[in-house]
């Protein structure tokens, strides 16, 4: 999976080389050239008609990634672990490399095992540093994920000949570089393999968060109470972190390690601005995921930039909108209470 992705980036770079040589010093264009003209046919019509075979899958893929991240993200926000999400999204890198070096291939199995182990290791290290020294939690997070990430990059460089894994790709996955050509047929529907994989991952996440709703909720709200009920909050915590690692790895290819943080936080944060009830938040997160995926792909097509980044920008826009709505709601409450 990853090897292909690296090739895509490389190809792009080579293409640029020629262009750069031609225009190295002379910089002419203005800011106005920056935003391309809005081509209705290309941006809005084509993705739903002629090109639906490609863009339809892309939108679905974006939706699946954002949904899986958003569901977990809601719990991360509740547990004030947003930055642990940030940390894990970076520190699974050495896990991937190690998985490759040990198993000698980059199949889904080794990748997932490596990532989950790295994710759990990150959590353990953060806790170890935090609880056995005077270093505070925030610094412990920073130390852990930076060191692990550095280790990952180093490993890739050392074993560059053997690992067909591009650190750049891990950081900057891109929807359009996903190997769409690999088709599989499931239940009579022919679909790209990555969509199937992500679909399964999202399904598992949705299933688990649904099944263990009560346990997750109570252990997020009051770990002591959960322990008293015999729910083993530590087990739940580590399971959540393992799930997070899984989703992060599954999402790497399409969005990369940095933008995945946006997918983790934006849907949940947007939902929490609009509602205070967790089930409603889940619904809103999924809605946010769907809207930002569709809008994002169109935006990316219009501007001709990275589709993954465009999905994030669309999600940010939606967040801004929700922020505005929540501010207006607040003001209304104020006026009402003021007049009363």
């Amino acid at each position: 999976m990853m090897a292909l992705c690296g090739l895509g980036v490389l190809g792009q770079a080579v293409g640029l080389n020629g262009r750069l040589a031609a225009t190295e010093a002379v910089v002419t264009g203005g800011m106005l050239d920056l935003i391309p003209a809005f081509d209705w046919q290309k941006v809005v019509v084509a993705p739903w008609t002629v090109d639906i075979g490609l863009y339809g899958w892309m939108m679905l893929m974006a939706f699946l990634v954002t949904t899986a991240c958003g569901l977990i993200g809601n719990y991360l926000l509740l547990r004030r672990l947003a930055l642990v999400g940030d940390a894990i999204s970076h520190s699974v890198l050495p896990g991937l490399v190690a998985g490759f070096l040990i198993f000698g291939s980059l199949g889904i199995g080794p990748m997932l095992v490596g990532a989950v182990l790295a994710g759990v290791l990150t959590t353990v290290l953060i806790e170890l540093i935090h609880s056995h020294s005077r270093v505070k939690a925030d610094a412990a997070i920073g130390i852990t994920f930076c060191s692990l990430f550095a280790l990952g990059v180093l490993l890739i460089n050392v074993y560059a000949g053997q690992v067909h894994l591009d650190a750049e790709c891990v950081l900057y996955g891109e929807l359009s570089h996903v190997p769409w050509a690999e088709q599989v047929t499931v239940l009579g529907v022919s679909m790209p393999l990555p969509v199937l994989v992500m679909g399964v991952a999202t399904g598992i996440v949705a299933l688990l968060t649904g099944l263990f709703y009560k346990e997750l909720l109570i252990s997020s709200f009051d770990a002591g109470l959960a322990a008293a009920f015999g729910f083993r909050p530590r087990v739940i915590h580590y399971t959540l972190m393992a799930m997070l690692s899984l989703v992060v790895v599954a999402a790497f290819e399409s969005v990369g390690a940095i933008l995945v943080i946006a997918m983790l936080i934006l849907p949940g944060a947007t939902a929490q601005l609009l509602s205070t009830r967790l089930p409603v938040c889940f619904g809103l997160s999924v809605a946010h995921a769907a809207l930002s995926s569709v809008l994002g792909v169109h935006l990316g097509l219009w501007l001709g930039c990275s589709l993954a980044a465009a999905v994030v920008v669309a999600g940010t826009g939606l967040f801004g909108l929700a922020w505005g709505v929540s501010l207006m709601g607040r003001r209304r409450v104020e006026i009402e209470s003021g007049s009363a």
Partner: protein
Amino acid sequence: MTNNEMPPALELHDVSVSYHKKPVLYGVDMALPAGSLAGLIGPNGAGKSTLIKAAMGLLPVHSGWVKFFGEPLEGVRKRVGYVPQREEVDWDFPVSVMDVVLMGRYGHLGWLRRPGKADRRVAEESLEKVGMLPFRDRQISNLSGGQQQRVFLARALAQDSDLYLMDEPFAGVDAATEKAIITLLKEWREKGKTILVVHHDLTTARDYYDRLVLLNMRVVASGPTADVFTMELLQKTYGGRLTILSDVAAEAQRAEDGVKI
């Protein structure tokens, strides 16, 4: 005894403060004559710390104004000292006891100057006063709660202000320290300083302070302890919610009835 010409050390007029749009203080009026040792009491969430922080300009004030010695804070900063709650500070912070007390001198240094020999001497004297001089080079995390509070008092002393606003100086300190602190505060009052203390222990409030301010979002009553520490006013302040009230109220009742305790 009080000079009518002299403006109050601290005066709040119609001060309202909101936190996340929820009002915490609502139209607070209050005046504290210079030279008094006053307790600010009220139930949890009554806005006691908020009042002090708002007065010191640490929280935005929705409406109203605050004056110190008849002037806005900016002009008389050096005459006003603030002693925050112990919990607000990270006691793992890499500073020594001396460093913390020297901070009290920063206001006198002005912008960009560093503390000199004279400042160190003042800081040492202050530490001596609270019995903490032997600890001057200790890192602050190696102190007990009572010792930490003494360090804060030494810092206030080093500030050499005329009015002190103290946020719960008795919270979590041992009995010996509590006694030492109140003795020190009474000494300050004798020197003409004015002190306003956020206090949560009703059983001691009457003995410690010569004035009381009863607060619950609004000032319920404010004045000499004898006038204010009555069952009726306390009940009004606490809304009859606290169990401790029954004891104190009974005691207050006896006092009101003229029974010697």
